[in-house]
């Protein structure tokens, strides 16, 4: 009993749990930023938007993993050719939803984009603040 054996589904569960904890953390962070904001302005709005998109992407991906788990193993054949690979011939709603959720980059790209814009705006705000402080000193 000292050493437990970890079989194949454990990786899936761990990953899904990670997604879940990530989602909870993001919800918690968004809640805190709402009730106890440390700042306002465009940069913080972009930052919150980034978190929202990360949350959406996380949920989206979680669903994709779940749909993937629902599909039979035969549906995922080792690709002989990336150009000709296709999803299982018998389409089901699950397979179709899986197919759609695989386009998760349409959510994670905006998330990282908003994060970048947020950081840029933070830098710009600081630069302006320093310039104004410099003018005040003069």
């Amino acid at each position, binding site marked *: 009993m000292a050493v437990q054996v970890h079989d194949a589904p454990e*990786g899936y569960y*761990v*990953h899904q*749990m*990670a*997604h879940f*904890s*990530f989602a*909870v*953390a*993001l919800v*918690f*962070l968004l809640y*805190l*930023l709402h009730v*106890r904001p*440390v*700042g306002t302005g465009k940069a913080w709005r972009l*930052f919150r938007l980034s978190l929202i998109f*990360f949350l959406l992407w*996380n949920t989206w991906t979680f669903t994709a993993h779940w749909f993937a788990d629902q599909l039979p193993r035969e549906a995922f054949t*080792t*690709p002989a050719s*990336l*150009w000709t*690979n*296709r*999803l*299982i*011939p*018998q*389409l089901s709603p699950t*397979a*179709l939803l899986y*197919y759609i959720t*695989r*386009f998760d*980059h*349409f959510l*994670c*790209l905006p998330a*990282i*984009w908003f*994060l*970048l814009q947020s*950081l*840029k705006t*933070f*830098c710009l705000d*600081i*630069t302006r603040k*320093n310039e104004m402080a410099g003018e005040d000193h003069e």
Partner: protein
Amino acid sequence: MSNGLPLLPIYLVDFGGSLLMIVLALSALRHAIRLVRMEKDNVLWTYILWLSGALVTFSISRSVAHVLKYVLVLTGYPEIWSQLSPFCGGLNSLILVSIAVLTNYYYNMHNVIKRIEEDTCSLSLAHEQLKDAHAELRDLNLDLEQRVEKRTRQLQLSEEKFRGLFESSKDMILFCGLDNRISDINESGREILGYESREEIIGRPLVSYFAEEEKWPLFNCGLGSQGHVKDFEVKFLRQDDTRLYLMITASRIANEKGKVKGYELIAKDLTHFKEVTDQLIQSENMASVGQLAAGVAHEINTPLGIILGYSQLLMEDFAEDSEVHEILATVEKQTKACKRIVADLLKFSRHSVGGTQAPVDINTCIQDVLSIVEHSLNMDHIYVQRVLAEKIPEIVINVERLRQVLVNMINNAHHAIGKEGIVGVWTRFNEHCQEVEIIIGDTGCGIPPEVITRIFDPFFTTKGVGKGTGLGLSVSFGIIRDHGGYIEVHSPPVDKEVLAAGMNTAFHVILPREPQSGQSKEDES
């Protein structure tokens, strides 16, 4: 659709999106680092860096795995990807959990930031308060400096005024402490008291300058009871023991709490005024006595003439060796003595020079007189000290009258000395006043203060009965007055040269160089 859905769009979106994610994530990481570098001390940016870093790491890890997957599959190494895939998935899971854990730190971060903000606010408030306090202190300091400067100017002005008044006053001003010792005195005070420096006076008790010690309690009592003394007349002693006649006004000095610190004293020197007043009184007395004497002399002169005439006529009727003749001779002699007295009285009272006036050399006149009386003086071991100034102009005067004045004064000096002494004679010419001064001093006993004001009174004499008529100085006074001059007497002398010669009394005869106009008219009449 029978062939299923093509996976190529998914692969393309995955591959392209992953590459784009890597670029965007690296750019975001760069900005996060830049943000921290811009404000190194900002703990919020540090947290954002960590959070962004975790998100970026996850994005890169995931995207690299996707790209690697396609590269390995396309390059014919799908089995390698099959081995790497669990690691990549596990790593992604780990990063997701890490982000979740890191997110929870926001709460602590928020508290830290809040605490920092509170501290900052508190410090800012303290800084503002300190700034205000500093500004207020600076204003106060500036105001204080201005006040001090203004007050200093006022004090300086006051000090200058006071010092000017103190130093330039011709009256004596002095300050005494509670011990009645002089703490300060002005220059006039030093001069009036006849000292060389103020230090000789400062520290001495005020009472030591009171010539009449019985007046000190009166002065002190008045000052103590009323707080001030006004117009208090007192005689002060100078350094040379001569006396000053002062009028004192003194007031106590008290601080703000009313505690007496001493007193200030202002003294006006009335010595000269007193002398002039005494002389005026004397002159008035002389005038009154002169009128009386003239009346009496006139009334007595006629009977005396008749007595003398009849006694001389009767003497011719009796033999010279007869008893009656001797009695008549005595009557004649005494009558003549009476007539001489009457004549002297008339000389004193008569307001005319009489006789012939001519230019006379004073020094020659004095030598003539001394040649007559010096033998008599020498008999009593009295010697004459002559200090006769040269180039004294001649003055118009009745020389016989002047000789009479000089003889009177030298005889008085002789009488004052008795035996063994010096009679000093000085002559001077005051060009400014055009006056000639003759000083006759003696080393005799001096004249007591209570007597000095009466010596010119007719019939006043300190000589024994029968030794003097008391008319000598009266007649001399009248003669000099008739010539437009005056006589001063000082005992002890005030003239330093005379005092240095050892004289105890000095008579100053002052005569104008030219007879006064009023006097000439009188002479003509």
